[in-house]
């Protein structure tokens, strides 16, 4: 198996460093932990790794209430209780009431899959620690039935985090880490081109000029990101606005700037 397995897709432009990190993680069969500003395409990465390698993708979107065990399996006691009272199906067979979660499905799959664990930092502080063994050994046991699930082929695990909580060291030790940097102008041009292939060079230049100008505004609370830039360009084109001719103020500012203070700040700077 060659090392250079992932090299981006037609609709997803990955920097060299990111490609390298993905390939290292795949080769070492370790989870890849991806961090970066919101809107830099962390979640999209998993989709595109799956597409590039031709593997199915399983998603596990973590919420503040998610428990680690739910990712493996859930024992639906309420359904079993319901069946026992109203006499539907075979209550004796507990396996009927075991539902595998995304991680459980990834490990039980008979072929290689890509598993996305999205926004792992949203969950409780101890959440990553509860997954250590499963991610390490790629196996788990269903206590209720005694069934042992062992992965046939180690899944490619991509974990995203927004840096809201510090992840435990023991967990970090087992991951390969990459920080997606905010794209520079050249890379950004290529990224925008993917979404708007027929955009004129001049228009793109102007848009990027305004965009990076905005991002450079000091004290901005939330800086606009790639996905917002793409939305903004979309809005500009739909409305047929020519950036070169618009004087004073940025059209559709609301697609780029999302808080009152920032709008005020940008307004003040535009006047000055």
């Amino acid at each position, binding site marked *: 198996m060659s*090392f250079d397995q992932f090299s981006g897709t037609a609709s997803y432009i990955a920097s060299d*460093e990111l490609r*390298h*990190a993905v*390939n*290292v*993680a795949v*080769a*070492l069969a*370790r989870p890849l*932990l991806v*961090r970066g500003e919101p809107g830099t395409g962390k979640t999209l990465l998993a989709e595109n790794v799956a597409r590039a390698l031709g593997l199915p993708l399983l998603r596990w979107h973590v919420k503040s209430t998610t428990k680690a065990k739910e990712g493996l399996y859930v024992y639906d*006691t309420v359904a079993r*209780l319901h069946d*026992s*009272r109203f006499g539907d199906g075979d209550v004796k067979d507990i396996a009927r009431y075991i539902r595998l979660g995304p991680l459980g499905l990834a490990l039980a799959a008979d072929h290689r899959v890509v598993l996305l664990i999205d926004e792992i930092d949203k969950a409780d*502080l101890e959440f990553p620690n509860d997954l250590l063994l499963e991610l390490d050994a790629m196996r788990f046991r269903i206590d209720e039935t005694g069934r042992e699930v062992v992965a046939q082929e180690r899944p490619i695990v991509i974990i995203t985090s927004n*840096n*809201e*909580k*510090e*992840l435990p*060291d023991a967990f*970090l*030790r*087992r*991951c*390969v*880490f*990459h*920080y997606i940097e905010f794209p520079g102008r050249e890379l950004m041009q290529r990224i925008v081109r993917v979404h708007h292939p027929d955009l004129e060079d001049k228009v793109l230049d102007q848009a990027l000029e305004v965009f990076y100008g905005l991002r450079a505004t000091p004290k901005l*609370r939330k800086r606009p990101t790639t996905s917002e830039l793409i939305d903004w360009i979309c809005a500009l084109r739909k409305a047929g606005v020519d950036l070169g001719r618009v004087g004073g103020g940025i059209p559709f500012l609301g697609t780029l700037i999302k808080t009152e203070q920032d709008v005020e700040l940008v307004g003040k700077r535009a006047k000055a």
Partner: protein
Amino acid sequence: MLVDFLFELRRHKLKVSTHEWQALMEALALGLHDSSLDGFYHLARAVCVKDITEYDAFDQAFLAYFKDVKADALALTRELEAWLTDPRLLAGLTDEQRRALQALDLDKLRQLFEQRLREQKERHDGGNRWIGTGGTSPFGNSGVNPSGIRVGGSGGGRSAMQVAEERRWKEYRKDVSLDVRQIDVALRGLRQLGRDGADEELDLDETVDETCKNAGDLELVYRPPRRNRVKVILLMDVGGSMDPHAELASRLFTAASRAGRFARFRSYYFHNCVYETVYEDAAFKKKVPVAELISHSDRDEKLVVLGDALMHPAELLDPGGAIYYYASNRTPGLEWLRRLAAHFRRAAWLNPEPDRYWGGTTVEVIASVFPMWQLTLEGLAGAVRYLVRGGARPAVPNPSNWVKLGLG
């Protein structure tokens, strides 16, 4: 030996474990580094470093370890030569300087450059300047902005050394920025959950248990929801030397006072040092005697003081030393601070002043009374950990000579 690189990393306070080191070795055996230094840089960083705030330390360690790599030095020399021969840059020189420069032929110059280059890399671990600005170096004399020869500025194909040299991850270090969101996240750790109040939440496990005991007839069990039990008192120093930190202080206040964050949150103000009274408002109108504050607070409440702890020693140590004080205080400020610190089981002082300026000032004295952290992401996390779990206080230099001065 490459293993020295591991120790270089650890010397830069990167907690690289054998686990990760083995993974790196495995990756090298698989050839994942592409047999190049650049490849190795990215590979080692991906495997060994798990936090962007540590990228900068990694860059430094990388530079320190690979400082003797020849290829890059040569490429650099070429770049510098080109720079030297560029007449535009010589325009700003005085006649004397130009003569001095011409006195050195190119070979000699290159020798000197290489020598200087080596010395500089050895002496400091990873600044942005390769050549000094001092008046004695023939290179610095040229009057060209040092950033003009910053490596990695122009042209494609930057090498790992250059990327590392650039140290562009510097601003992500933990000891700098702090916005409301970050403070919010840090304060999230300040919680002790407990179940209090009315039974509002369905307790599923207990319901299942009770239902089973009830032979299958549903028996619903409710319980009170989990709430944060931590109560916080925030004492803030305002005015004077705290003015430059006003923005930071207000961010901390915004994050801490957020509704529902703590079981109880109270804030008071003082100026420079705490004496008999603190104030409910920043305008110093509503007095609250400190004795009352103490008697009305539970020992388990968390006291957080925000202040730079910088003042004239007399303000802290002498009776009657208060700076704006109309009725002179009989008890020195330090004594009031001691009483506060003694009453609360856990108290923390957050200081917006960088800790390198603490030495030899009243900060040291106060740090011996209150466990003190600098108000950075790291410091705040440390303070929160201490407030919740206790444990070791940050080390303070012994300010005995100060204390002798004031209190004998």
